[in-house]
């Protein structure tokens, strides 16, 4: 049993956060420059979120399993939640199979510096948007 009680809650938490990231210019500009479409497939509870950076603004599309994505990432909802606190050893998670990634690896890696500021944003977001009970790391 994961930390989040159901898919709807996790989709609200992370989808909302991705939306906020998309409205944060210092991060959004770099993500948009990548032109990537990234599909995150989460398990326990199961959620799919597509982050589309191919246009003029970042779109977050829940539940879309059809749209063509250059990058696909799979992980548990708990690992994803911990990741956005900056508390997941990314290399270890990938080596140990806790996260899987498919797509142009160099382009994925280029996103790492871009998302650095979001680790500080996530706990603040949880508190401010009524998800304080999940602010655990």
């Amino acid at each position, binding site marked *: 049993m994961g930390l989040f009680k159901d898919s709807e809650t996790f989709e609200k938490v992370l989808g909302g956060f991705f939306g906020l990231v998309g409205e944060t210019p210092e991060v959004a500009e770099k993500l948009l420059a990548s032109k990537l479409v990234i599909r995150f497939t989460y398990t326990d509870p199961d959620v799919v979120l597509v982050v589309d950076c191919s246009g003029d603004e970042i779109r977050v599309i829940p539940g879309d399993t059809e749209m063509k994505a250059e990058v696909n990432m799979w992980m548990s909802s708990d690992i994803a939640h911990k990741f956005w606190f900056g508390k997941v*050893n990314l*290399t*270890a998670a990938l080596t140990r199979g806790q996260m899987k990634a498919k797509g142009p*690896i160099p382009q994925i890696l280029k996103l790492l510096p871009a998302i650095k500021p979001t680790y500080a944003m996530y706990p603040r977001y949880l508190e401010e948007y009524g998800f304080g009970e999940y602010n655990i790391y």
Partner: protein
Amino acid sequence: MHGYAGKILSVDLTSNTIETSPLDSDFARRNIGGIGFAANVYFDLIKDNPRFDALDPDNPFVIMTGPLAGIKLNGVARWVCATKSPLTGFWADANIGGHFGAHLKFAGYDGIVITGSAPKPTYLFIENDRVELRSAEKYWGKDVYVTTDEMIADLSDKSNGSAQVFAIGPAGENLVRFASIANDKSHFAGRAGMGAVLGSKKLKAVFVRGTGGIDIAHPDRLETLNDKLKDAYDESIFIEAVRNFGTVTYMDVGIISGDIPMKNWQQTEWEDFDAIGPLAYEEKILTGRKTCYGCGIACKREAEVKEGPFRFPNGPGPEYETVAAFGSMCLNSDMESIGKLNDICNRYGMDTVSCGSTVAFAIECFERGLISEEDTGGISLTWRNAEAIVTLTEKIGKREGFGAILAEGSEQAANRIGGKASDFLTTVKGLEAAMHDPRSYHSFGLAYAVSPRGACHTESPIFPIQSGGLYFPDIPELADEQIAMDSMGKAPFIIACQDFGTFLTGCAVFCNLGISPLNASQAVEIVNHVTGFDYTIDEVTDIGKRIWYLQRGLSNLFGARDVDDRLPKRLMTPLEEGPSAGSVPDMDLMLKEYYALRNFTGEGIPEKGVLIKLDLPELAELLYKGG
């Protein structure tokens, strides 16, 4: 013998004699190769008289390959050097990539044992059975790149195979205590000042050309395993990361956990950080990629700056450790200057970790008023001052002015500077810490403290295992993910890393980057397929344990005690901000557990009983003379 060349070359520079001896198959089976060979050979040479200075002719210098060097496979091109360190005064070994190890075996030798000291500059010429000591007057005083190019041009016979050079630069000749030795201009025996040992022996270089090959016991099995591993390599994001960005890819990962030291270990966050990250590297200095013998990963970078104050010609580019040491450690956000500093260190033959750390230490002394421009010869040694760092680094290589003080290493420099300078040191056993912060991973603190050679990140694969690059689910002590900022239970983890790791990267001499997709069983299988031996994980771990104790014992023989197993004040000072804010390793807790599990006395020496049990009776005898 499968996997081995079958001969060891012994060269005495004092008497100008060269001998070859057959590699004993029982010795090979018992010690595997690399550091297993080097530590045993070195101990045999010094056991009757273990008291000498590292720069005396009595200090042997040993080069050894393992059974895998010369095989065309990812991550097996490495080989080792071993000696007593002129920087620390303790045991030192280095693990080097490149092509020299493979070519030494093609020439017919598993290793070279160098003793004595030549009366004048000399180089060792090896071409299969033809081995000669020759005058190096022509090359003495020349930098590593020029020496390598000229020697290859002077001596190569293109119809008779390619040649390799392993050379020191002016820093080694000038006995800079962190001088390095270079193969092919870009692969270094970097840490602990081995270049100064060759400099003291007046040995400028070893030139090798070989036309033989390596006999593999079970080539079909090796090929089958290699085919099986192809998918794992193709799917490994770690391999893809080092392939695409080199080791500097770690800048974007290490920053998240607070592992990258900044401003001489005073912070782990910095607004200019991205200016020296992998993308800036790619944009500003990257020109190409290179690789070690037989390895398809190609993690080495080529770099160039065509114009401006930091211009340098196309050549080997900086690694992660160099970018951190001359970049974040000095708050230097000029990527081009870091490329230039790498070029200077490579040409002079200096360890970039110790050199960059020593410069950062000197900057702090300057900023805090312990030294002035009068001391530095007019250099305004301030944070962010790329020009000053470049000027000072050249002076260190030349042992000129204030550079001569820093050329002794930061600990000796702190003694000279006095006052609170020692508070700014980042050394363990006299070796400047590698660019990984024990406040972000407590296990690194224990690893630095108990390493026979000081605060080095490659003494065992602790760093790639803890930070996720290596994963061994088939070794229980290494299977569980370690909590980063927690000191509980770290001793068994470190011991397993050291024991299996001494086999892995020390004796078999695997590359801890290039074998990321392998598990422990597959690594052992590779050694078995090449040698025809039938090692198990348990057996190689036992061999690794014995060799680790031998290295620890050598440092003990040279005077290392429990007081040397400590982190400096700077690394034990909690940071106020950043991912590791407030965290310091509990060294007392970890050391207590470690000493008990390793059967160390309170003085940090392995108990006699454990050495006897490990079949190291002569070491036990020497350490417990008179009782």
